């Protein structure tokens, strides 16, 4: 449905997008994830025809946005970062204006009524937008994107500035849209993509660093195990013992005490299950394991390690330089194995911890 090929966008000497390619299938909800300034909005602005790309191609349902913008724009509903509202209009006037602007052919009254029902703005329909709260304005912005029943809906940070209840409502709304529309949304909130999206594209400094199904990311999370263990015994010895044990990538004592038990944070190496071995090892030494809690790794960790990894490689420095021509060099490195990235992250932290230890001594 949406196809982006080798998109490059330079702002003067600053490179906002650096050879981005991805595809979105029909009815799919894709989340663009990235820190501030990663190029999410730029990608969306190019996709909606607001900006042009320096090079590369973006097409909606096979229609190139640059060569046939009017036809392509008819297929898109777009909610920019700041909802484009005319504050002096009422919601009714505004939606009618959008209806005319997009040259819709649907039954006007019924169509607008249905949209208002979907985003629940029926009770402010006759009010002037200037007087609406941020949450309602955001919803009017979403309503605007839905006018004309576009096949593709693009939301740029749709839940910014909303209260938790509204956020949940908007997320449900977006998930509902996914049944009939192709949705792209950008955010820097991880729970959001986790909750809503079928697929996650992580962008950092203008490059795609990961493009995975949400389940796959969750799977990568499963591979690395983090535990909180409560162990009775002398703290220092237990800690040295844990650190020397095979399969443990990282261990540290937490400032938590339960009777004579100390709490430790333990992270196993990639792909190994250390729980049994840990129990046996402790039992041999007569230290009782009175609690073992598995800490799921969240997307934040994945995000940080993936982003860190891409920066470590030194790609970041090169990425910010403007690119006048498309580089045809393969970019396998950009889309890397997440598990491996996480493993290396754990290894790095272990080394850092070891270094700190020697410094302490």
């Amino acid at each position, binding site marked *: 449905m949406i196809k982006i090929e080798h998109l490059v966008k330079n702002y003067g000497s600053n490179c906002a997008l650096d050879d981005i390619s991805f595809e979105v299938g029909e009815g799919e909800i894709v989340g663009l994830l990235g820190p501030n300034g990663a190029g999410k909005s730029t990608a969306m602005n190019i996709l*909606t*025809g607001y900006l042009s790309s320096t090079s590369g191609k973006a097409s909606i349902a096979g229609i190139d946005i640059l060569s046939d913008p009017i036809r392509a724009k008819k297929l898109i509903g777009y909610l*920019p970062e700041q909802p484009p*509202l005319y504050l002096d209009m009422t919601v009714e006037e505004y939606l009618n*204006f959008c209806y005319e*602007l997009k*040259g819709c052919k649907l039954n006007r009254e019924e169509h607008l009524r249905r949209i208002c029902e979907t985003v629940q703005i029926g009770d402010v329909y006759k009010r002037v937008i200037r007087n609406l709260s941020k949450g309602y304005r955001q919803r009017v912005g979403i309503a*605007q994107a839905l006018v004309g029943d576009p096949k593709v809906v693009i939301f740029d940070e749709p839940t910014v500035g909303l209260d938790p209840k509204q956020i949940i409502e908007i997320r449900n709304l977006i998930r509902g849209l996914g049944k009939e529309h192709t949705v792209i949304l950008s955010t820097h909130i991880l729970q959001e993509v986790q909750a809503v999206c079928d697929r996650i594209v992580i962008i950092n400094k203008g490059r795609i660093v990961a493009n995975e199904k949400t389940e796959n990311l969750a799977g990568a999370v499963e591979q690395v195990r983090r535990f909180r263990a409560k162990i009775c015994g002398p703290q220092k010895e237990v800690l040295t013992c844990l650190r020397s044990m095979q399969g443990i990538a990282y261990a540290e004592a937490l400032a938590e005490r339960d009777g004579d038990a100390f709490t430790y944070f333990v992270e196993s190496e990639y792909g190994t299950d250390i729980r049994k071995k840990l129990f046996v090892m402790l039992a041999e030494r007569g230290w009782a394991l009175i609690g073992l809690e598995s800490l799921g790794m969240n997307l934040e960790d994945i995000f940080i390690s993936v982003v860190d990894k891409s920066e470590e490689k030194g790609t970041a420095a090169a990425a910010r330089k403007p690119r006048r021509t498309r580089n045809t060099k393969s970019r396998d490195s950009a889309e890397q194995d997440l598990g491996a990235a996480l493993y290396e992250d754990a290894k790095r932290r272990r080394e850092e911890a070891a270094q700190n230890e020697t410094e302490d001594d």
Partner: protein
Amino acid sequence: MLAIYRKEMRSYFINPIGYVYLGVFLVFSALLCCYTTLVRGSYSTGSYFTYLIFSFMILIPILTMRLFAEERKLKTEQLLLTAPVSIPGMVLGKYLAALTIYVGGILLSCVNLIPLYIIGAAERGGSSYSMTHIGPITGEIAGSLIAVILLGAALIAIGTFISALTENQLSAAIITIGVIAAMVLLNVFNLLKDSDGQPLIRVYAIRSIISWVSVMSRFSNFTNGIFDYAALLYYLSLSFVFLFLTVRVYEKRRWG
């Protein structure tokens, strides 16, 4: 395009701007008409139309300042630029809305000329000789009206262009006032004479350039009752050029 035109028309009358413009323009033109014709006891409308143009220095920026600057500030232009509307369509919709208000004002101000016709008719009825024309000359007035409208169209195009350059309405207005004032008043330099009665600007080439750029020097033919096609073409091409430049501003921003 039609949707944008309608939206702009609406916003002229939802904000005070449309009313302020029409009110000030009608009052000014009525006073002007009174002083240049009735008070002087003259049927000649030449100086009325000439002085009317001076009011455009202030009034046309009011009309054009918010066209694009406001959209840009409120980020609503994103809606227009991502909607299935071409950039020329968008520019034209906004331009035509401003032009409609302007032409509406001019047509309404024609009321000012009615007393001249009434007095003219009365005087004609009372006079014994029928060979000479008494009262305002309709052809001259029609010609002047067309010229004023086209001149205004050109100035509105300039204002539209300047509005597209900035996101601050006030600076758009001030720059537009400056540019229009320069175009209208430039001719004054050509009229200046030193003590010997020689033109102050001695070089003929400079004088001809000034009179070429000045909108007023082209307008004076109309006030003398000459229908100057060259001037009309000048006004039309001026409008076209600045509308084209406005479109280019938006195209460039996309590519920038």
